[in-house]
């Protein structure tokens, strides 16, 4: 289903560029990129911006594929989002964590894959992080990510309490043009373990907690941004010590319809493996 949606978006993106319909009014990269949870943002944290290049009179959208190759795992994510009148964003994403050799160690079998589907909604509450350059007020959005882990019995056996959960977040983002900077901060309420790939809640903690996430990017050119991100995480499972995430990224939009993001991610401990880091690469098509 999601794969079909992705292909539909792909085709739509190309026909849009071919026929130059009334879309894509926004400036380059101001639609952000798709985070690994599907919502528009940086790579690992959602921003307040509404995805796609649609203006307040248009509908925009994007689709993405992200591959993260870290020391002992591989994480794939793909999905699509629609931005409606620069006010509401709907997103769908599928994540697949390939446990590779760790799977065998955990008794799940080598290359065991844990899948998770995420539906997201984001609503812009106030501000315009791009246009309102005379004011310090950032763009502020509220969002929810509804997650369903497809391997309930596996994540429960690792100590998770549930196989589904909802993250709520409040994001404040602003481009400070006079300094060529993008600044974003997000407060998230969650009990997801490794975004939900290891389930929700656990045998050490089983309640919702609030976490800070932030991004800072320098706009090298109008189509290139260089930045870093930080994301604090819960630590609910006895079997694993979950750690905060960070990355350094470079986002490049060679044309309005295509953007590429490369990042070096530092994800700390994941399940039984320490110091998980590696390269994140993402292709996004938008209109």
């Amino acid at each position, binding site marked *: 289903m999601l794969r079909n949606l992705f292909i539909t978006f792909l085709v739509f993106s190309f026909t849009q560029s071919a026929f*130059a319909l*009334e879309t894509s*009014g*926004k*400036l*380059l990269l101001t639609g952000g990129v798709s985070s690994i949870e599907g919502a528009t943002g940086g790579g690992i944290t959602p921003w307040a911006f509404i995805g796609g290049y649609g*203006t*307040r*009179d*248009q509908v925009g959208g994007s689709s993405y594929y992200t591959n993260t190759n870290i020391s002992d795992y591989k994480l794939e994510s793909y999905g699509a989002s629609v931005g409606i009148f*620069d006010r509401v964003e709907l997103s769908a994403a599928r994540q697949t964590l390939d446990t590779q050799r760790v799977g065998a160690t955990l008794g799940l079998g080598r290359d065991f894959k844990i899948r998770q589907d995420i539906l997201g909604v984001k609503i812009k509450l106030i501000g315009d992080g*791009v*246009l*309102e*350059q*005379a*004011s310090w007020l950032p763009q502020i959005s509220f969002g929810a990510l509804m997650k369903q882990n497809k391997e309930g019995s596996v994540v429960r056996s690792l100590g998770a309490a549930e196989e589904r959960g909802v993250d709520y977040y409040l994001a404040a983002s602003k481009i*400070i*043009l*006079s*300094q*060529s900077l993008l600044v974003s901060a997000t407060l998230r309420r969650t009990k997801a373990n490794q975004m939900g790939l290891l389930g929700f809640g656990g045998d050490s903690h089983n309640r919702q907690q609030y976490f800070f996430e932030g991004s800072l990017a320098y*706009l*090298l*050119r*109008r189509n290139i941004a260089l930045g870093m991100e930080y994301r604090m995480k819960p630590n609910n499972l006895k079997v694993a010590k979950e750690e905060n995430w960070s990355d350094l990224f470079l986002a490049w939009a060679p044309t309005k319809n295509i953007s590429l993001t490369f990042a070096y991610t530092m994800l700390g401990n994941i399940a039984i493996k320490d110091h998980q880091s590696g390269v994140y690469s993402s292709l996004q098509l938008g209109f």
Partner: protein
Amino acid sequence: MKVLILLSLMSFSVFAEQTSAEYVAFGEKAGLVKVVDDTMINLLADPHTKPFFEKADQAHIKEKLVEQFCAELEGPCTYTGQNMKRAHKGHEINQAHFFGLVEALQKAMTKNQIPERAQNKLLAKLAPMHKDIINK
């Protein structure tokens, strides 16, 4: 000697009063004229923005834009054109048209090798004008 230093200090302060680093980065008046000329070429090439400019007095608009950009960059100019609200009233300019103009300007600035930071400084000054331009 002291007089010389004093004189050079004075001339420096006069200079500093009239121009900003960004204005210099744009190549002062001559640089702005080139940027605005190229912006108009881009506006006429883009089917979204073309209808607003093809039948207008382009020479006049360009002259006023140079004045306005110069003033916004703290150069030695005073903007003598209409205020933004009046200049755009009734033209049914939407957000996409507005961003179309920004893009035309960005391309022109890049073509004229204006440093990125100076480009963004100018855009930061112009962006708040959206309130008087879009849907007026």
